[in-house]
């Protein structure tokens, strides 16, 4: 056996490495594609009914629960998400994401103080979602809301990201 790389050996080396790459790609494409598939899937942006308008009182902010925008049949407790809904007038509603714009923790509505407070790093928002203090960089994210046939509807969308 000599160490010289004859044309035949050179060919066999490249040929073998190439075959290996083909086999790796044949396995790798579906595996990696499967792992990255969630990036391609659009969130379910659907109008979800929150119930009749009369259920909500003007000037009040309440938690509402709606189906998750990324549903799977086995989600269990993760099948739903929450939002804050505020009735501002006879047919004016505004809906906020519960996620603090700082790092996503769930903000709490403190009805007495008329403020949203974040338990993680102390972010504070006014009743209209504007930042009142603390680290949040932006106002609370709003979801589209509409009133139709006496019912309130909220349009679900992906987790708001900074």
């Amino acid at each position, binding site marked *: 056996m000599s160490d010289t790389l004859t044309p035949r050996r050179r060919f066999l080396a490249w040929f073998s490495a190439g075959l290996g790459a083909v086999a790796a790609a044949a396995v790798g494409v579906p595996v990696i594609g499967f792992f990255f598939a969630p990036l391609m899937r659009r969130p379910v942006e659907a109008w979800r009914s929150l119930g009749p308008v009369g259920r909500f009182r003007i000037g009040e902010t309440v938690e509402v629960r709606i189906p998750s925008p990324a549903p799977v049949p086995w989600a269990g407790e993760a099948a739903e998400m929450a939002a804050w809904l505020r009735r501002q007038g006879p047919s004016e509603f505004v809906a906020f994401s519960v996620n603090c714009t700082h790092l996503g923790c769930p903000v709490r509505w403190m009805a007495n103080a008329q403020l949203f407070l974040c*338990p993680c790093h102390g972010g504070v928002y006014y009743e209209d979602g504007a930042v009142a203090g603390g680290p949040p960089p932006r106002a609370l994210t709003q979801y589209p809301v509409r009133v139709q046939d006496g019912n309130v509807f909220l349009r679900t969308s992906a987790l708001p990201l900074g």
Partner: protein
Amino acid sequence: MLSRLARLIRAIGHWLEDRTGLWSVSRRLAEHPVPPGTDWRYVLGGATLVAFLLQVATGVALATVYVPSTGSAYQSLQFITHDAPFGRVLRGMHYFGASAMVVLIGAHMSRVFLTGSYKFPREMNWLSGAALLLLTILMAFTGQLLRWDQDGVWSAVVASEQAARIPALGHWLAHLVLGGATVSGPTLSRSFAVHVFLIPALIFAGVGLHLYLVLRTGVSERASIGPAVVDPATYRAWYRNLLDREGQPFWPDAAWRDAVVAVLVVGTVLALALIVGPKPLGKPPDPTIIIASPRPDWYFLWYFAVLAILPRGIEPSVIVLAPLLFGLAVFLLPLVANRGRRTLRHRPWAVVVVAAAVFTIAWYSRLGVRSPWSPDFDARPLTAQAIASSDSAVVAGAALFYARGCEYCHVIDGQGGSRGPDLTDVVHRFDHPQLVARILGGGSIMPAYTGKLSSTELAQLVAFLESRRGSPK
């Protein structure tokens, strides 16, 4: 009879050795020479490996019952903790084993840094170790998520929000963490696959490389017996000569200390698991339960605290740049500083760096436990005894102080949250117009109360605050 059995066993042993040769290879590896003076300072890497193996063993056991589904994970964790034989102690060992692995890898890295052992020809030992540190951190994070209670759910959200801050790639990374547009079934399943298959496989490969390099380059000699200056041109020959002259077999001359430390690590983890038990499960993992106070496990708490106190203006850059710069520094260290002196006397900055890191983590961990920036949601109305006044305006003001949320963030007579300053003695710092202006106009972290208080209410609140005497600071 017994001697025949012994002969049979010996014969099988000889046959296996003849066909595999594993015994002689293992012996040669175990007896590789180490420099004289390989003492207790050299046990931290082995201890980290012991902690990792402990995690593998307990993790495999837990995985035989744990259900990686958002619908059932919480129930399976309850079952493991309360019903399964040995379940509680196994969860406890896995929890404290994770802590041990994080602490020991940090200690090992600090030791290697302090003794300058990352210098030539061991640069790749350092870099493979740095990769293992990153993998350990990812294990700690995904493990915290797999404890799928309320904290687990929100740690997925917080992590994706942090990832989203990275320019260009952020949203993409966040959706990769979540496995979709929001927290849902795939979030847990993929974290499970990453925690149980992907990262452990990478850690096994990384440990293999790390140990191979340790055998190939040999452990670093104590700086005191080494050459005054590490010079790549002469070091290898000098080291080989040292081993030839004074080398000792690793097994058992040095390995006995590793055995002692291995027992200490396992014993401590087991004792903590038995006495303290696993981290209790929080509320159910239902994203619609808004009443939550998410907190990361202790090893991330210091970073959680840093994110609370960073000024708003610089936070977006720090949150991205700080981890990046740390990673870059760790990566570049052995490449730019691979020669020269190893002794601490000539590298005082190394002590400063390690001391500063330990102090920062300890200080902010403590702060994270107290979380003074978080509102005190459990604040109760002030009692008549605390108000200590019959003036109707003062009494009404005290009620407003609680009702309008002031008490979530301000202490009066030892009651209330510490987000804002203690107002017991505010009268010594603010005069009447200043008090009114601050309440109506707010501050950098305080909401403005214009429009939230009637003029009567404002007067009552101010009357209450001015009735507090405190003592001047």
